[in-house]
């Protein structure tokens, strides 16, 4: 019986980790479908971004109350996972509280700390669930989240509550058994939070208590494995990806648009035809029509998005009722990547599906509404730039499809012919100066 449990545990762990690794590999593959971009200069600055923005969650502190609560969930998540190490080892070795004898008093102190964190996490999850579902916050009501994304957010909060409750219930049953001197249950000293639940179990037999303790233990760890495998399909992937995303965040001023050296070269050739080499090949793409032409960083961005909607809440276009929502830009990019990933899984390599990110997932109307104001970039807590995707798609729209509103076409021809976006004669450019004389 004992060995059976150990074997079962080992099998479950291996399957869970294998499944996770497989999906993680697919996500990595999908991200690398994007264009190469070197983003590892200035490691010092990058590490400090990782510490400040990802670990320190600096942008979250624009709203300190929410930031502290979010920080608690996140710290709880990380720290309580230390305890998972013990659970896994116990599971494989068939031991119970393996670390207790080794750590002595420290063990009691640690579990107490975990219990307080667990309680804190439960509290914050309840607050966040209410905030999401009862308070009418525009960014949570938005149609961006209709369907799966809205449930996703709630599922994870419920799951956290359940996992933490299992942890506390397990400890409570354990303590009653300890008090009765039950053979298998080592003395660990009392735990502050779960000892409050223990009295409820006083009337139960040893057998029942052991059953409760064991069930909680199993459900807890199976829950954690499930959570692990749920992550890659959820907005909660940001728990992992926020870190690389902060590290690879762009370090240049937000106002600088990415140069297109291939167009720069074309223009040079046009200006100095004598420099064109005989074997010059014109560029294959201008801007991005699909994820393959976006930088891999934009694709990492899409997988890192928490769907929090802070970007959209600060977007001037969205605030004034336009179709554009930077959050939706990120979600649409991720959807497209997932669809392409499935396509690749099916056919070994991508088989054209007559769809592109531009048009089929993101509309021209959305792209046209952007003022390139960078509010979305500034607002994002996990270093995402929806603007990069928008401008790359706009480039394709204009340069590959010549798809511009009539007013823009006039603007372009004015700039080209009169050197100003309006139809003024270039001779009048310094007329104002004559008037000051």
């Amino acid at each position, binding site marked *: 019986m004992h060995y059976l449990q150990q074997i079962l545990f080992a099998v479950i762990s291996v399957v869970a980790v294998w499944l996770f690794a497989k999906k993680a590999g697919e996500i990595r593959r999908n991200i690398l479908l994007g264009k190469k971009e070197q983003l590892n200069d200035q490691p010092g600055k990058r590490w400090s971004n990782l510490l400040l923005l990802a670990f320190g969650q600096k942008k979250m502190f624009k709203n300190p109350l929410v930031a502290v609560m979010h920080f608690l969930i996140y710290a709880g998540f990380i720290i309580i996972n230390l305890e998972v190490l013990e659970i896994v080892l116990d599971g494989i070795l068939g031991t119970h509280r393996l670390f207790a004898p080794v750590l002595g008093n420290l063990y009691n102190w640690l579990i107490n700390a975990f219990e307080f964190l667990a309680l804190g996490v439960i509290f914050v999850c309840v607050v966040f669930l209410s905030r999401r579902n009862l308070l009418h916050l525009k960014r949570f009501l938005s149609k961006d989240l209709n369907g799966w994304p809205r449930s996703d957010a709630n599922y994870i909060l419920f799951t956290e509550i359940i996992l933490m409750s299992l942890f506390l219930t397990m400890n409570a049953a354990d303590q009653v058994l300890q008090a009765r001197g039950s053979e298998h249950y080592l003395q660990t000293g009392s735990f502050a939070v779960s000892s409050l639940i223990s009295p409820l179990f006083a009337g139960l037999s040893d057998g029942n208590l052991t059953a409760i303790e064991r069930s909680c233990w199993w459900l807890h760890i199976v829950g954690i494995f499930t959570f692990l495998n749920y992550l890659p399909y959820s907005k909660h992937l940001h728990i992992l990806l926020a870190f690389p995303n902060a590290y690879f965040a762009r370090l240049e*001023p*937000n*106002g*600088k*648009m990415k*140069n*297109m050296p291939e*167009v*720069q070269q074309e*223009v*040079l050739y*046009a*200006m100095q035809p004598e420099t064109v080499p005989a074997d010059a090949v014109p560029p294959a793409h*201008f*801007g991005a029509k699909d994820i393959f032409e976006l930088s891999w960083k934009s694709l990492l961005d899409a997988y890192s998005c928490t769907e929090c909607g802070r970007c959209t809440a*600060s977007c*001037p*276009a969205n*605030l*004034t*009722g*336009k*179709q554009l929502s930077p959050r939706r830009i990120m979600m649409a990019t991720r959807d497209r990547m997932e669809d392409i990933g499935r396509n690749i899984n099916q056919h070994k390599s991508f088989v054209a599906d007559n769809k592109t990110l531009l048009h089929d997932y993101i509309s021209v109307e959305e792209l*046209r*509404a*952007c*003022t*390139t*104001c*960078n*509010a979305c*970039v*500034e*607002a994002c807590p996990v270093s995402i730039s929806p603007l990069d995707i928008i*401008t790359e798609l*706009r*480039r394709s729209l*204009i*340069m590959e499809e010549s798809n*511009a*509103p009539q*007013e*823009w076409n006039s*603007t*372009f021809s004015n*700039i*080209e012919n009169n*050197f*100003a*976006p*309006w139809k*003024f004669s270039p001779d*009048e*450019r*310094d007329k*104002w*100066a004559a*008037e*000051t*004389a």
Partner: protein
Amino acid sequence: MKVNTMAEMMAAGESPDILFWVGCAGSFDQRAQKITKAFAAILDKVGFKYAILGKEEACTGDPARRAGNEFLFQMMAYQNIQVLNGYGIKKIVTTCPHCFNTLKNEYPELGGNYEVIHHTSLLQQLIDEGRIKLKEGGSFKGKKISYHDSCYLGRANGIYEAPRKVLEALDAELVEMKRCRSNGLCCGAGGAQMFKEDEPGDKRINIERTDEALETGASFIASACPFCNTMMTDGVKNREKENEVAVLDIAEMIAANME
């Protein structure tokens, strides 16, 4: 006041301390021309040796690039860099945050390396150095002014304080809008929106921003960008407040109050 062009300066065997990049709005738009004139007057008064490119200046290409037309942007950049490098320009000041951003951040990669400064930063320096002296009890003393952050100055380049410092020198009462500094709301002109109708929606962006500015109860809205200025001026007119609230560039406010 005589405004010299680079060509004239060169012909006279002189070279300026700084090039004043006027920009398309500052050159052609009637409202923005007043900002240009005010800033030129300040440069003149503090005795700056400056020049403009005159007819040799051309659009930096910012709206074309942001609309997606990289070809046109690269053409304009090539042309401008040829002219600037031809004159050996080292230092540029501009009253337009879009020109500022393009010249400062986007031209270096294309071979145009200059020290570029926005006029609000230069004004702050001149005030700090005592080269600009403001009248005691100037026309803004005690008046409520609300400063509207330009996206291309603020979030794009991290300049939030210089314009505010300059305004403080006017002895005015600075009142902030609900969204300011890094949270500032766009006026709606950037990304080539200035040159086309808004996409369908329920409000114009400039009206939204003007409403925020009006809520502060300020009698002056200070701008640091000719496009923001146009957008906010239109907004104020739309709300029929043009008799109570004026939209002015920071350079105009300083020019009106110099000793």
